[in-house]
């Protein structure tokens, strides 16, 4: 309950700060849209030169991308921790966090929320409906429920990976280029994993399980029965990785030495 009221208070403060720079907020939402358009353009341009990508049609790929945008939007709205190392460890901000009586990760997350990213949910759903209608897909009664579960699972997978990477900062306080790179790898979950070789498929499934954010759950709605097991594993992977991430974070906090300023 206390956590919930902290959450609403932080959101309230956040809205105030964002409204201070309205022009920037508009540009930011616009840049998000642009970012989403870039990937759509990539797919469209590529399919201008080919008909099938390992047996997947253009609209299926677009649908996967649309699905990917939804958990990704949740992730970037609430788990914007990829400058954690610079901001909290190198500059010693973590000292302040640790003196307060709320779980440190929760505070860091609250301080870094970016609610405008939630627009991605809308874009994603629009893209899915567009691609879905081209493919002649219909919405079954259980689809919305499954959708919510898979989206949360996917968002947790994404969040866990980045929480774990942020936790590394507790051991080595050097500036790290790993996060942006892993972020790039994250984009490969948007494409069908069967275009990659076994090693990369394994990596995307079990080590950096980005495939659970895009292609696996999306294949449930595309009726690709061969991937159903993976689709249903999505919430399991989300819960498992999130637990691991929290454990790693908690261990990391005990190792924090305070960089001072």
């Amino acid at each position, binding site marked *: 309950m206390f956590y919930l009221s902290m959450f609403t208070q932080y959101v309230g403060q956040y809205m105030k700060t964002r409204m201070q720079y309205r022009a920037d907020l508009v540009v930011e939402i616009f840049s998000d849209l642009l970012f989403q358009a870039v990937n759509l353009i*990539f797919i469209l341009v590529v399919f201008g030169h080919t008909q099938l990508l*390992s047996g997947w049609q253009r609209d299926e790929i677009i649908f996967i991308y649309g699905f990917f945008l939804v958990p990704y939007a949740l992730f970037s709205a609430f788990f914007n921790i990829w400058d954690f190392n610079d901001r909290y460890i190198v500059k010693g901000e973590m000292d302040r966090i640790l003196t307060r009586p709320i779980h440190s990760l929760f505070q860091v997350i609250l301080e870094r929320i970016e609610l405008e990213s939630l627009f991605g949910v809308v874009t994603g759903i629009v893209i899915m409906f567009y691609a879905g209608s081209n493919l002649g897909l219909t919405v079954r009664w259980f689809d919305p429920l499954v959708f919510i579960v898979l989206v949360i699972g996917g968002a947790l997978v994404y969040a866990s990976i980045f929480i774990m990477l942020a936790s590394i900062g507790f051991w080595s306080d050097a500036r790290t280029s790993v996060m942006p790179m892993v972020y*790039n790898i994250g984009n490969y979950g948007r*494409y069908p994993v069967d275009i990659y070789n076994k090693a990369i498929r394994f990596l995307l499934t079990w080590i950096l399980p980005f495939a659970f954010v895009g292609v696996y759950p999306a294949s449930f709605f595309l009726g690709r029965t061969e991937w159903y097991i993976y689709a249903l594993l999505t919430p399991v992977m989300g819960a498992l990785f999130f637990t691991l991430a929290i454990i790693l974070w908690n261990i990391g906090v005990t190792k924090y030495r305070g960089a001072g300023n």
Partner: protein
Amino acid sequence: MDKYIEMIRIRFLMMLAYRTNYYSGILIYSINIGAYYFLWTAIYGGKENIQGLSVIQMTTYIAVAWMARAFYFNNIDREIATEIKEGKVAIELIRPYNYLGMKTMQGLGEGIFRLLFFSVPGMVIVSFIFPLNYTSNLLTWVLFGISIIFSFIINSQINLLTGIMTFFLFNNDGLIRAKRVVIDLFSGLLLPISFYPLWAQNIMNVLPFQAISYIPSMIFTEGFQGKEIIEALIYQFVWVLILILPIQILWLFAKKQLIIQGG
């Protein structure tokens, strides 16, 4: 001049202090290029070539584009924005150097560091794993070298422009992100410009972005031949000159506009 070279050196040493995580960076970069390799192999799906590029040239293109990015990429726009927001820019302005010049030099120090400790070992490692085609023609390497220097200048100029905009917008994270997206797409990092439909190519021909990534990568993969290379280099050079103008104008206004928000 000495002080600018000193600034390159200091930034280089600063980066050197944190070099260990660049090794893991190379590994992840390779995975990144690898994923593109599979994506493009699937896209080619047995086709001999698309838009004059074979699948090996395409993979080389992607690898070189990313490795060159390590050189020309910098965060000076974000640094300028932070210095303005924190009020540090006031101190910077009274120091006896050209602020924008100094920022560019810091970016160059970073770029040279990443070129030596990231791009070069990265290219070697990547070429062991994937079938890439590095040309043995020395001239191509020289032209590529010239071309990525232009890439660095143009990318830095665009970053300076974005950074200076903070003087007017006060908070321009959105603009910085928009700029990054535009550069990724229109510079040819993700897709060679020749893959786009013609009308889009025509638009991009009047914008500076393809000078950042498409031109050096095409020179390296020998997608450009003879006269095309010369034209491409001239295109880059002309944009270097054109971009000086808005930077100088905005900078003049910015200094008048300056509000110190703290410091």
